[in-house]
């Protein structure tokens, strides 16, 4: 008897749950929903509300802090994002694993504002899957009150004068990349000997390094805790806006140009909405607000033209053609990543 009652309750519970989930699904159909997955603090969030109003769509906005977090979430399935913002090397990986939908450029007319130099790159030669969102370089952020020379070379990060005043990035590809550029090798090398050489260089440098940092590096530079830091241009722009004594330089040996793209994961439900959203973000006035909010450089030429003169002609934020030609993009390394990891572990365990 008792059991019967229990069973009855269970059935009731199941019915309630089913009814509840049906009602949720019903809600979803009234107003199309666009699921956006972006880096933290990487958009002026007011823009989302304006998009909702103009297109009568609901935007669900989530954030991640590394490419790898995003990749794992998309790869493991179960998420339903319509627009994501991978970096270029992650784009390669996702394309190799057939994880992205094709985009229809006809439905994104504003793509005409985008910088030719960042279109049709090796990652996506015909821009069939992605459009650039924001971009930048790898360089050296330094404190002009503590460093009185002009920074022109990566060598300064190996200068004994700055013992315990140097911040390196706790990021394998960037720190090893700086050593590879200094040695005159490609930042995408698969050559184990070249990597070992770069590893040796980083081990020699270790006594000079104050710390290997990621996000907290810019705060340490702003507070004057260190003199020099290997960093990305966008982070540098933020730090400079907080402390006027700081400056950013791209060494003459070359740099790494990186960019983040907009793309659509395979199986996205709201393709039309995703196209509209990408087009919206490429409107010059919207792109302008994003670059001003985030601090990273915009690939949108029309938006750049609207920036204040000292920003738009700032060779730190918008490097010359020459610097860009001298630069290399990161390419997804596949299995060779293991060699990088090994070198990095050796450096850090040294």
């Amino acid at each position: 008897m008792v059991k019967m009652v229990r069973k009855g309750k269970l059935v009731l519970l199941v019915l309630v749950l089913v009814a509840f989930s049906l009602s949720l699904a019903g809600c979803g159909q009234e107003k199309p929903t666009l699921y956006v997955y972006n880096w933290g603090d990487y958009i002026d969030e007011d823009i989302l509300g304006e998009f909702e109003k103009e297109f009568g769509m609901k935007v669900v906005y989530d954030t991640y802090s590394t490419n790898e977090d995003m990749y794992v979430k998309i790869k493991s399935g179960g998420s339903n994002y319509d627009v994501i913002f991978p970096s270029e090397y992650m784009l390669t990986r996702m394309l190799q694993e057939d994880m992205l939908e094709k985009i229809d450029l006809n439905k994104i007319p504003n793509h005409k504002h985008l910088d030719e130099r960042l279109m049709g790159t090796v990652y996506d030669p015909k821009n069939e899957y992605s459009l650039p969102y924001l971009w930048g370089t790898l360089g050296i952020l330094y404190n002009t009150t503590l460093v009185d020379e002009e920074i022109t070379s990566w060598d300064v990060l190996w200068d004994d004068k700055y013992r315990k005043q140097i911040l390196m990035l706790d990021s394998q590809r960037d720190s090893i990349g700086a050593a590879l550029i200094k040695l005159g090798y490609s930042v995408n090398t698969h050559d184990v000997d070249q990597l070992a050489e770069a590893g040796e260089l980083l081990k020699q440098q270790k006594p000079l390094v104050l710390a290997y940092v990621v996000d907290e590096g810019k705060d340490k530079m702003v507070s004057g805790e260190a003199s020099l830091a290997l960093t990305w241009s966008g982070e540098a722009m933020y730090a400079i806006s907080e402390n006027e004594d700081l400056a950013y330089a791209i060494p003459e040996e070359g740099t790494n140009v990186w960019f983040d793209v907009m793309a659509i994961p395979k199986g996205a439900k709201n393709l039309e909405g995703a196209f509209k959203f990408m087009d919206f973000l490429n409107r010059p006035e919207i792109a302008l607000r994003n670059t001003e909010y985030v601090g990273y450089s915009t690939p949108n030429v029309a938006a750049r033209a609207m920036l204040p003169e000292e920003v738009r002609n700032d060779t730190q934020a918008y490097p010359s053609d020459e610097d860009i030609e001298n630069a290399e993009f990161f390419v997804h390394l596949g299995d060779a990543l293991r060699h990088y990891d090994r070198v990095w572990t050796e450096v850090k365990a040294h």
Partner: protein
Amino acid sequence: MKRATLFPYVIWMALFIVVPMLLVLYYAFTVPTDAGATWSLDNFSRFFEPIYLRVLGRSLRLAVISTIICLLLGYPAAMVMAGNAFSRKSVILLLFVVPMWMNFLLRTYAWLTLLERNGVINVLLNALRLPNLNILYTESAVVLGMVYNFLPFMVLPIYSVLSKIDKGVIEAAGDLGANSFRVFTRVIFPLSVPGLVSGVTMVFMPALTTFVISRLLGGGQFTLIGNLIEQQFLVVGDWGFGSSISVVMIVLILFSMAIMSFFEGEEKSVALW
């Protein structure tokens, strides 16, 4: 009836504990090939190379140092709290526990600012004309971070055991002629061993596997075993190697718990478990 109520838990545990554990084991003992995966011990033999053993050695050393410091600081604190000297015991207890409700990352970030060259601590030391303290981005800072974060896990179990000791037992020891030192070594300390063992385990395990503290306060210069695992999963994507390190850690922790329970003897573990 009992079985029916147990059922959801069994399903839950199977899905979220047993299956993931099996997956970890699977990844640890296989290497990917073009055709799928084959059984192999490669991941483990890689772990026993010198660079990774050095990482393990450093992790063990820092975890042991932190545990000892926690014990030396925590035991007297627990005794004071359990004793009769304070009438407002609950206030002290609350002061120990409240910081734990705050986000762990936030508390560690705070040390980053406190320990800076021009940070609060050095400003105070300067004002008192004392020499500056420059330990940020050193092993000392990592140990400090661990002790600070894990000390409550040492104090609380010891406190809970000590406060449950029957006062009559202590009085009896005194009546029979034991001085207070002998009361401590012969009565209080032996009775507190179960709490001590819980405390040591609860400090040692997180100290051994932390990766946030070593990255933030050690400035990424002291790769610990936790950092190595994180790196395999998030950066390299070498799940096999990451899983094999995790399996080694599980074995190590089981081993240390076996040693602990040997010391614990017949007494049952109490407190926060």
